[in-house]
C-alpha cells in the first residue's frame, strides 16, 4: 500500500519543481554545449536551393518579415540566415512586412545583416515598410508594387532606387519568402501563388509547420522552414551557425526531459489506477 501512496504523492508534487527542472535543463547547455550536428531535411534544402539559384545583382528576392515579437526566437534566426545567404551571394533583397509589429523587427534584421556584409541601403537592399490589409496588399502587389509601396519605409520614392528599376509586380520577383507566426504565410499562398503563380517559400513557427506540409507537397510552397530547428538547418547550410544552432543543444535536452516526464507520468498513473482497481 505504501507503493500506491508513494506514486500518488509523486504525481502530486508541486509543479514548480518541474518548472525548476525545465529552467535548469535550458540553461546548462548554454554553458556546456554538446555541439551536436544538425542534419538537413528536404524542405529546408529546397528553400536553400531556391535562394541559391537566384542571379546575383539582378531581380530582388522579396522577403516578407511578417512575424511579431511573440515568435521572435523561432523566426528571427531564419530571417538572419536567409539575409546572410542572399547578401553573401550578392542577391538583391526587398524587405517588407504585413504585421505592424514586424515593422521594427524587419528593420533591425536588415540593418544587422547589412552591416555584417557591408551592404549599402538602396543599392543592395531596400526596406519597403508595412501596409495593412494582408490579402488586399498581396493582391495589389501582383498588379503593381508601386500601388502598395510608392515609397520605401523612410519616404523615398521607389524610383530613386536602382535595384527597383523595372520591378513592376510578381513577374519580376523570382522568389518570395514569408516568415510568419500567423496565417500570413497561408495568405501568400492564396493570393500570390494561386492567382499570379509567384514562387513562395515560407518560414513558420513549429506550431504551424505540420499544417503546411500539404502546401509543400503540391509545390504551392517551394520550401519550408519549421521553427528553430529549420533555422538551425539553414544556418548550417549558409555556414554561419548562430542562435538556431546554439539552441539545438537545449532543445535536445528538454525534449528528453519532456518525453521522460510523459513516460514516468503514465507509469505512475497506470500503477495507481491498477492498485485502486485491485483495492476497490
Amino acid at each position, binding site marked *: 500500500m505504501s507503493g500506491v501512496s508513494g506514486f500518488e504523492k509523486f504525481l502530486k508534487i508541486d509543479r*514548480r519543481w518541474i*518548472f525548476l527542472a*525545465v529552467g535548469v535543463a*535550458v*540553461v546548462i547547455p*548554454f*554553458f556546456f554545449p554538446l555541439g551536436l550536428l544538425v542534419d538537413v531535411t528536404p524542405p529546408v534544402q529546397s528553400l536553400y536551393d531556391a535562394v541559391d539559384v537566384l542571379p546575383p545583382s539582378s531581380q530582388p528576392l522579396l522577403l516578407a518579415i511578417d512575424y511579431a515579437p*511573440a*515568435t*521572435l*526566437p*523561432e523566426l528571427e534566426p531564419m530571417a538572419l540566415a536567409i539575409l546572410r545567404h542572399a547578401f553573401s551571394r550578392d542577391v538583391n533583397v526587398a524587405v517588407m512586412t504585413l504585421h*505592424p*509589429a514586424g*515593422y*521594427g523587427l524587419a528593420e533591425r534584421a536588415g540593418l544587422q545583416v547589412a552591416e555584417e556584409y557591408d551592404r549599402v541601403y538602396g543599392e543592395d537592399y531596400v526596406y519597403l*515598410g*508595412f*501596409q*495593412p490589409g494582408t*490579402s*488586399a496588399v498581396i*493582391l*495589389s502587389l501582383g498588379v503593381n508594387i*508601386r*500601388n502598395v509601396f*510608392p*515609397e520605401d*519605409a523612410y*519616404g523615398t*520614392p521607389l524610383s530613386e532606387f536602382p535595384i527597383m528599376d523595372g520591378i513592376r509586380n510578381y513577374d519580376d520577383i523570382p522568389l518570395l519568402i514569408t516568415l510568419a507566426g500567423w496565417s500570413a504565410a497561408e495568405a501568400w*499562398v*492564396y*493570393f500570390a*501563388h*494561386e*492567382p499570379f503563380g509567384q514562387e513562395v517559400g515560407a518560414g513558420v*513557427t*513549429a*506550431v504551424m*509547420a*505540420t*499544417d503546411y506540409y*500539404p*502546401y509543400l*507537397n*503540391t509545390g*504551392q510552397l517551394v520550401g519550408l522552414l*519549421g*521553427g*528553430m*530547428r529549420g533555422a538551425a538547418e539553414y544556418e548550417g547550410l549558409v555556414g554561419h551557425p548562430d*542562435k538556431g544552432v546554439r*539552441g539545438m543543444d*537545449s*532543445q535536445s535536452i*528538454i*525534449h528528453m526531459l*519532456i518525453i521522460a516526464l510523459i513516460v514516468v507520468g503514465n507509469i505512475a498513473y*497506470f500503477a495507481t489506477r491498477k492498485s485502486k482497481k485491485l483495492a476497490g
Partner: protein
Amino acid sequence: MTLFWTTIGAILTLSIYSFLYKDNPFYKFAEHLVVGVSAGYYLVIYYWNYIDPNVVTPVFLLRVGADRIPLLGMDWWMALIPGILGLLLYMRFFPKVAWVGRWPLGIYVGGYAGLGLSPIMQARVITQLGANALPLAGVEDPFAAMTNLVLGISIFAVMTYLFVAKRSMGAGNKLVRAGVIVLAAVIGYVGYLALSLLSNAGVVSLTNILLVVGLLGTLSYFFFSMKHKGLLGGLARVGIVFLMVGFGASFGYTVMSRISLLIGRVGFLLHDWLHLID
C-alpha cells in the same frame, strides 16, 4: 545607454517569468504595460505607413503629384471616399448614429469575404485534390505494380480490421489495445521492408496508397450526413488513426515551438544582458 535599456528588457522578462511562481503585481504591471505600448506602437505604424501618405497627405494637404505619390494613382477626391468611409466606422461610439457605421463595415466584410472565396477553393481544395489523385501503382512494370497494390491493400485491410473489430468488442483491456498497435506497426513495417526489397517504386506506391486512404478516411470522419456504420464507419476509424498521428506530429512540433521561445529568452538573458556566454 544600451546596457540601461537591455536591463529594462531583462527586468521585464523576469517580471513575466515571476508568473510561474504565482500571479503577482510585477507580472500584472508588465502585462498591462505591453497592452498600452503595443497599441500605441501599432497606431503610430499605421499612421505613418498608411494613413499619412495615402489619406492625410493627398486629401488635406493636396500634395498630389508633388513629392508624394497617392495610393494607386488615385485622385485626391478618390482617396477621400475610403477616408470618409473609414471615419464612419467610428460612428459606433455614438449610439444614436451607430448604424451609419454599418455602411463601411458592409463593404469591408463583403469585400474581404469575396476576395478569399476563389483562392481558397483553388488552394485548399482543387490543388490538394489534384496532388492526391495519385498513381497508386506508379511503376512501369505491371507485375510489380500489381504486387504493390495487393500488398498495400492487404496491409490496410488488416489494420482496418484490427481497429474496427477490436473497437466494436467494447472497451477491451489495455494490453489488447497495446497489442493491436504493436501488431499493426509490425505488419506495417514488414510490409514496408518487403516493398523496399521488391523495388524503390514499391515504397512510392505504398506511400501513395497511404495518402489516398488517409485523405479518404479523414474526409469520412468529418462526414455527418450518414451513420458511421459499415464501409463509412471503417473508413472513419482509419481516418481517426491518421488524424491522431497527424495531431501527434503537431503536438511534438508545438512542444518544440514553446521550448524554442524559452531558449530564445534565456539566450537573451545570458548573452545580451549578462554577457555570461559568447
